[in-house]
């Protein structure tokens, strides 16, 4: 089982984590066209590569960002979401 480094709890088995999807910017709901909005809601980029993803350490309820190379299945870095959001 893979290990993942939780920024709050340190390395833990990946079983303790839940995946929350790719970190994506939401378009402005008031300015986006219906088509743009539908694209945001329904379409995901499945191309392999380095992605920034939401991950949650379930027992502690801590959400953070993981940079993961989905081609090699390697977690490159993990950090609290404040680092990218604010």
């Amino acid at each position, binding site marked *: *089982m893979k290990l993942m480094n939780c920024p709050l709890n340190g390395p833990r*088995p990946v079983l303790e984590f839940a995946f929350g999807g790719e970190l994506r910017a939401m378009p402005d*709901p008031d300015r986006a066209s219906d088509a743009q909005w*539908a694209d945001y*809601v329904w379409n995901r980029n499945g191309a392999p590569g380095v992605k920034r993803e939401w991950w949650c350490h379930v027992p502690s*309820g801590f*959400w953070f960002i993981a940079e993961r190379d989905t081609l090699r299945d390697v977690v490159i870095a993990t950090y609290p979401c404040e680092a990218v*959001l*604010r």
Partner: protein
Amino acid sequence: MMRRLPPMADEWIDRSRPLAFRFEAAAYQGFGGDTISSALAAAGVMTVGRSFKYHRRRGLLSAANHDSNAIFQIGRRPTVRGDVTPLEPGLEVTAVNTFGGLERDKAQLIDRLAPFLPVGFYYKAFHGKRLAARWERLFRRLTGLGRVDLAAPREPTPKRYAFCHVLVIGGGPSGLSAALAAAAAGARVLLVEESAQLGGSGLHGSALDPARAATIRTLVARVAADKRIDVLCSTYAAGYYDDHWVALAEPHRLSKVRARAVVLASGAIEQPTVFRNNDLPGILLASGAQRLLYRYAIAPGSRVCVVAANDQACEAALDLLAQGVEVCAVIDLRRGAAGEALARLRGAKVVILEGWAPYEAHAGAGGALTAITVAPLGASPGAVVTAQARRLQCDAVLLGTGWAPALQLAAQAGARIVFDESLQRHRATELPPGLFVAGRAAGVGDFVARVAHGSQAGVQAAAVAAGTVAAGVSGGAPGDVVPSSSHPFAIIDHPGGKNFVDFDEDLQVRDLENAAQEGFDSVELMKRYSTVGMGPSQGKHSNVNAVRVLARKRGLSVGELGLTTARPMYHPVPLKLLAGRSFNAERKTPLDSRHTALGAVWMPAANWRRPEYYPRPGVTREQCIREEVRAVRERIGLIDVGTLGKIEIYGPEAGAFLDRVYAGRYSDLKVGMTRYGLMLDESATIIDDGVIARLGEQRYYFTTTTSGSATVFRELLRWNALWGLQCALVNVTGHRAAVNIAGPKSRAALQTLTNIDLSDAAFPYLAVREGQVAGVAARLMRVGFVGEIGYEVHVPWAGAARLWDALIEAGRRDELRAFGVEAQRVLRLEKGHLIVSQDTDGLSNPVEASSMWAVKMQKPYFVGQRSLRILQARGPRQLLTGLEILDGRLPRESHLIIEAGEIAGRLTSVARSAALGRNVALAMLRPDLATVGRELSIRVDDGAMVRAKVVPTPFYDPAGERQKSGVAA
């Protein structure tokens, strides 16, 4: 014939402990320390099983559990691996896959039908549908291994989690020295060995180099004395998973080990020479003979012929000579080979035929080996000069023409396996950080070099485990200059075939060539079509030879063809080890003991167990539920709703947060009031609902559905992390208990237990109050889910039982009834209240669920709002609609509504309503049909049509008078 020799210095058997056992009903005797295989060999039993397809006689091959010849049935235990299963007194062992016993197996006739059983036979036989069923019945009887006794009792087996700094896989010379070196560097070491004792192949070749035995004894003793090394024998690493997470199959349990670094000292697996009848009992691997000799003091025969293409095979011949076993000839596929072992054989006047190969083996009357025909190798790979063939009388043949390093686990770990053409062996490259391959698995052949190589790997692994190196160093083989120990093509053609490449699956050279001819000419395709490598030994003895056959056929090199993917498990693992014990986490509310006392019938709800209803003697289930419903409608009912998700949110922006995650508005909710909440996802699908109570300016308490509680809370935390609003969420689902006391007389009963004024003026419908109930700190919410005046009472976990008992007592005068989930479903259906994920599905939005009353579209932003705007403009494709069933027959949930032959909707909830005196339902219906008064047809189970009519909801008390003011109280 095999036989027991006088005691060997390091033998594993205890001659003072004779053990009687039976094989195929005949009585035999072995010793303590014997395996089933070795005990049979010592008793001179040459045929231990019948082959999978042709039912040919098979004998011991590797004596190491690498082959599948020695698989037995012991009573209820199928597929017992004889090479590694210790002999126990009184065992009743039988062979598998025979008809009428091993010696007289009626199915052996199939061997003569071999020409009619081409490669890919199953695919061809099953291709036509007509006969497939008959074929299948036949094959199920004729093939397969043990018998599974379906009545066998369950043996719960434990699973264990283990941790170590360095895991060493393999207890041979390199594994032992790796463990010692890692431990000396300060690491906590776990050493696993698949045999019953440590040492591996360390003693092999002791006749040539007696110092080996002393070295092995020292290493084993030092490992035993080292407190930092834990040793697990009779244990194999079954699978290698991410980040050095290794599954260890022990005899009676599975251990999941997390290591910081791993040394793979798994050795090499000897590959059989392929020639006609190379599967006769009496023909075994040279290393197999050495195992039998050193561990169990067994000679493979009395006149032995050794087929060799490397030093190790020559050493095996010397090992036999040293014990007085006659070696009649060494058939060396090489020409002009040098080496100490070969020189010593020459000195011992052993006949050595250089550049010769075995061509055909011959069996006598009893099926055992009597002679072998040998011939000089020809010009092209696989050819021999038959004109010069010679016949040698012998009763055993040792095969020692090639090795395949056991790199399966390295491949599972992510290493790339490449083929070294010059050394004719595979090696692992691009090892993941922290994995080191040592010893023969890395291609190091010499004994002293293996010990040194293991030590080097152990030091490196310990450094990685200690974090002193950045885990980037890979332990490859040091410059190995020894000649190749594998012949490039020890596969001899014969017009009569029966030259087996895969013993598990009875595959001959020509089967593989025909597979390639038919177009299955890559290693993966050939494997699947011919089933090579798919038997119990998973290709440990067949994959490399099969690739060589394919390479010759295609004119490519072995390296160009590659290898099939090695996946877990390394050996077949008993399913009971994988299954372990049943572990189903089941949550119980703090009132579980009270429900048990009332004899509740349980039903699962998410991972909780909840009372479905409370049975009464002599009353049917339906009647019980009806009585529980009536108690709520006419008197008082009490239900445990503690499984609801319960969340507290604090902070100046708590209201703003709720405004964003729910479709309704909560920042304007008055303190002391509650409001229904509908939660959507970004696509505007309804994902949850609940009640939000405002306890203070900056303090809310709200509920989620039972099934949604964990995921909803997690998603709320994510939104909170994303938005960074000034608020914090606490999940108190497990901390708090909750009950709903409802019914016309509930207010009066509850009032006797609390100082909170329950009058409509002081505590109106939808209000929330905090205070004491029965001496327990409680939050009371006046809700209307079941359609009568009622209160949800939320208390801390520890006060739940006290509250429950007090409520039961307070309601006794009015014949309070506890009611279960089924009664609640009927009650809420009479009110037309939907249940998320029963009446809605993964596509239902508030427009379609007729729930727009709970949505405030004018709010600035909430999750799902933008999508809902689009959906509103588009209009609903279905509508949640109330139906009255007109016929006596009750349809069921999910029955379809048919209009003009087309599906026009489906029922989501159905109930007989005693209060209404009719049967009602909710249905997702095509909008053009959802007009009050419209008649519809529902198709029920047997295809009959039941009539229904669209009616308005709520069905019961449409104005909601009863819940608002407690009518008839």
